[in-house]
């Protein structure tokens, strides 16, 4: 059973990857939009493309329906003067003559599987209510009965998101908000080169997803587990957004998690991976700027936003370096009148931290480098060995994480490759930082072993003759 499932899911992944390459062919810099709209459709959610006119938004949506077998496609541009007939079909006059108030929905939105509604926020109140029910419940009130609609996903498009309350509720119906930008400077030459879109061919019928495939995928997604680490981060993100007065509705969180499950199921995984969370910006933030902020937050939280060396570990390494420096500079003659080593709290804190000398060196007329015994050095090196083991532990964790990412990338359909590249580069930099720490620790250890030694079996408290050094007046 497991074997067959694995085989099955594998084939699903390959099939989707194949389909994606069909969808993307000829479109420039639309990789993210294509993938997100497809993922939304597979999860049975609606997506909203936000961007200026002429950015291939409708082309995207038109291609999307070819992924599904027997999917009917419906497309309409809304204006303020659009009437319900344009979306939901004309009234049936024949039915009226029989005293029934019904619409001919065949060929209109209630009959479509994939729909593209351009300028979706122009919907007026005459249309809005019916549209909201349709998006939410996938049902349409027609005459005396409620019609079940085969709707899989609606792709909405808009130039900008209006800021009033009704629009807010409508906006919330779209789980994924995908900003679409005009192609960049680099992509422009390629854009001019593109062949006419009529050249585009739809995926072959055998490749398309039929109802059975979708049901199987849904069943698989339902079995995907959400690990504790992921749910913790979701909870933290929720609180973070709340602290910014950008609350996300509970319904949206539920749908978001379903989307994550579906993303995992599509790739044949049985658990949501940490990297899947990088999809969250599109579900939780309304516009490009805030999506970028959520993205940054997530990457920082996962620990892949930038090169960093773990701060506390770095402090320990620095402490040993400072200690070595102190012990090298320590003056053997820095005793007070009673023969005890000088101890000054402030100098401990400010300069060297350990008053095995150092502190009063400049005040001394005589100076001799302090010498250390075997036990002292053994104690220090033992502590550093512990530190080196500690660093090795960090490196192991990092290596595991990098391997994890590489594995994820090899099967991932949804992770953007630029993002993955960046994450990978950051992890590599962290690894470098760790190896830098390791080298510093090793060098410090070496330094401790080279400290000036007490002569063997000598010096039971008697100090050798001091050496005169010129008094320094710069202090």
């Amino acid at each position: 059973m497991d074997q067959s499932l694995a085989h099955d899911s594998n084939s699903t992944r390959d099939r989707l990857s194949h389909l994606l390459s069909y969808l993307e062919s000829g479109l420039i810099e639309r990789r993210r939009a294509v993938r997100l709209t497809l993922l939304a459709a597979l999860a049975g959610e609606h997506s909203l493309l936000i961007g200026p006119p002429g950015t291939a938004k409708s082309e995207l949506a038109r291609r999307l329906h070819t992924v599904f077998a027997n999917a009917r496609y419906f497309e309409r541009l809304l204006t303020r003067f659009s009437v319900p007939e344009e979306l939901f079909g004309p009234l049936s006059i024949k039915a009226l003559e029989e005293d029934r108030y019904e619409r001919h929905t065949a060929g209109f939105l209630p009959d479509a599987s994939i729909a593209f509604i351009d300028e979706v926020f122009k919907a007026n109140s005459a249309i809005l209510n019916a549209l909201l029910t349709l998006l939410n419940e996938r049902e349409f009130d027609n005459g005396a009965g409620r019609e079940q609609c085969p709707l899989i996903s609606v792709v909405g498009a808009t130039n900008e998101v209006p800021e009033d309350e009704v629009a807010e509720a409508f906006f919330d119906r779209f789980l994924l908000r995908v900003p679409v930008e005009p192609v960049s400077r680099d992509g422009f030459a390629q854009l001019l080169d593109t062949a006419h879109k009529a050249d585009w061919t739809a995926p072959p019928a055998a490749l398309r997803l039929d109802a059975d495939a979708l049901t199987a995928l849904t069943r698989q997604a339902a079995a995907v587990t959400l690990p504790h680490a992921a749910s913790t981060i979701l909870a933290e993100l929720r609180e973070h957004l709340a602290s910014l007065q950008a609350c996300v509705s509970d319904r949206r969180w539920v749908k978001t998690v379903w989307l994550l499950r579906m993303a995992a199921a599509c790739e044949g995984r049985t658990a949501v991976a940490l990297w899947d969370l990088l999809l969250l910006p599109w579900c939780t933030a309304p516009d490009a700027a805030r999506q970028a902020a959520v993205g940054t937050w997530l990457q920082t939280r996962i620990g892949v936003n930038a090169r960093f060396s773990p701060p506390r570990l770095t402090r320990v390494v620095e402490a040993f370096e400072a200690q070595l420096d102190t012990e090298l500079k320590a003056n053997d003659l820095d005793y007070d009148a009673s023969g005890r080593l000088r101890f000054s709290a402030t100098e401990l804190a400010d300069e060297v931290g350990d008053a095995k000398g150092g502190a009063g060196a400049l005040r001394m007329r005589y100076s001799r480098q302090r010498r250390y015994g075997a036990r002292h050095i053994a104690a220090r090196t033992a502590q550093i060995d512990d530190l080196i083991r500690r660093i090795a532990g960090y490196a192991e964790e990092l290596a595991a994480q990098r391997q994890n990412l590489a594995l994820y990338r090899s099967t991932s359909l949804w992770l953007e490759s630029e993002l993955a590249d960046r994450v990978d580069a950051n992890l590599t930099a962290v690894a470098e930082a760790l190896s830098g720490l390791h080298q510093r620790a090793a060098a410090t250890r070496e330094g401790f072993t080279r400290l000036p030694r007490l002569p063997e079996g000598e010096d039971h408290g008697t100090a050798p003759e001091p050496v005169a050094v010129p008094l320094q007046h710069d202090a």
Partner: protein
Amino acid sequence: MSAPAPCALLFEAREQRLAALDALARNLWLGGMTNAQGTLEARLSGLSLLVDSLLAGSLPPPAAWPWPPPQLAAALSATMAQLGLPGYCRGQRDLSVTVVMSILFHLDLIVDYRDRGADEDTATAMALDAFAADWQERCGHIDELVDVFGMLPEGDQSLRWDTICGQLRSEGWQEVLRIRRLLERLPELGRLIRQLGRSRQTDEPERRSQRTVPVMERALAQHPQPHAVHVPDLPGETRGIKRSDRIARMLPAEAMLLGHPRLRLVWHARRAERTLLAYEDDDRMAEVRQHRSPVLRPQPRPAPDRRMETGPMLICVDTSGSMQGGAEAVAKATVLEAVRSAHAQHRACHVFAFGGPDELVEMELGVDAGGIERLIRFLGQTFRGGTDICGPLERAIEKLDAAQWRQADLLLASDGAFGATADVVSRLDQAKTTLGLRVQAILIGDRETIGLLELADDVLWVRDWRRFGASDADSPVHSKSLTAMYFPGALRSPENRRSTVAGDTASAAVRAGLHRGEHLPDQDQT
């Protein structure tokens, strides 16, 4: 984004093990991380525990210490309990950290003692003894400091234990202790110094003032607020399509229904249900609304000011030769009491020690290593030289310009054998009227002089100053108003000023042959 950046999940568990580091005082980091005893995590959490429990004034049982190892912990705990260290450290973060830092330091030396030939037990004993000896001495110093200053010196960066210990061994410190004893016999000094300054209101009314102050009253204010009112169905702009029963605005498609024999019934039904598709019109009109909100309005009312106290202090101490002996001791006690009071109540205190011209010494006295040193130096010196009050007064008036000293009061401690120039007196008077400055004098002498009376609003007369010096005799003077009694015209009081004229005016009047009450004509004009 305003929220702080989250911590990274990567390495989170491993970094968490070193979490104790963040809570630890910065001074303990280095020693805590590189110490020769024990393992890192145990040591860090042990240090945190020690600092926190010292701060709370008690030590946990040694068995509960994560660090150092039980045997050392037991010995340390016994030593600290014996010295009463937890008691000293209660509520004193800097001191607690210093104690723990000292523990780290001494335990780190165990390996070195062993390297120099001691066996393990001896080395441990040596470290513990050195720790005990360190703190034995420091506890003695702490006791002395607390006795003199009422509390411990502040600030960990300025708390240079070695420096302070050195100072406490000096002879000058003995003088400080002597003057501290003397303060117990002069309780009125403390009371007076507490009342200096004008930063806090007391409940008593101020005797001198009766002026009108604005009292804030609640009132309602009306703010005009422009509003755009959305008026549906007012023909202005066609905004879209909606359902309604307005025939005038219905779509042509609805009119089509009327032509059909059956569909016209539909039209009627839809009209009755107000579901005809119609153009949606609306317009926006601007209007101004009055918005009422409570505000506070100042209302002038006569009210006596409250007496002010506890602010910064400017203290002028006469260090002239005439002060030698008992007066000197009282003056020094005044300064010490000012420093104690300033330290206990976190007030600023600036001392001008003045002798003759060019003999002005200014000191900022606080209870830290530098402040204690200056205080010891000041209290240890002998007073000599002349008396020039104008220099310090001018400096003090200048200081009042700074915001930090604006609420300061001036304290003069002197034997009163001085006089200020008319110019300085008038500047001081101006500061009194414009800034509300008050001048308190401590008269450590036998007579009130004009000079002192002119300057001070209030005089505390320490008549028995001789007792505090070498000889112990009562003042022979029975009243502080001696001058006023025997030389009433000599005081530069407002009445006297009105009834006297300057020398050149007088000689002009004599030349003009005028009699009492008559004035030169040109003088009348001025």
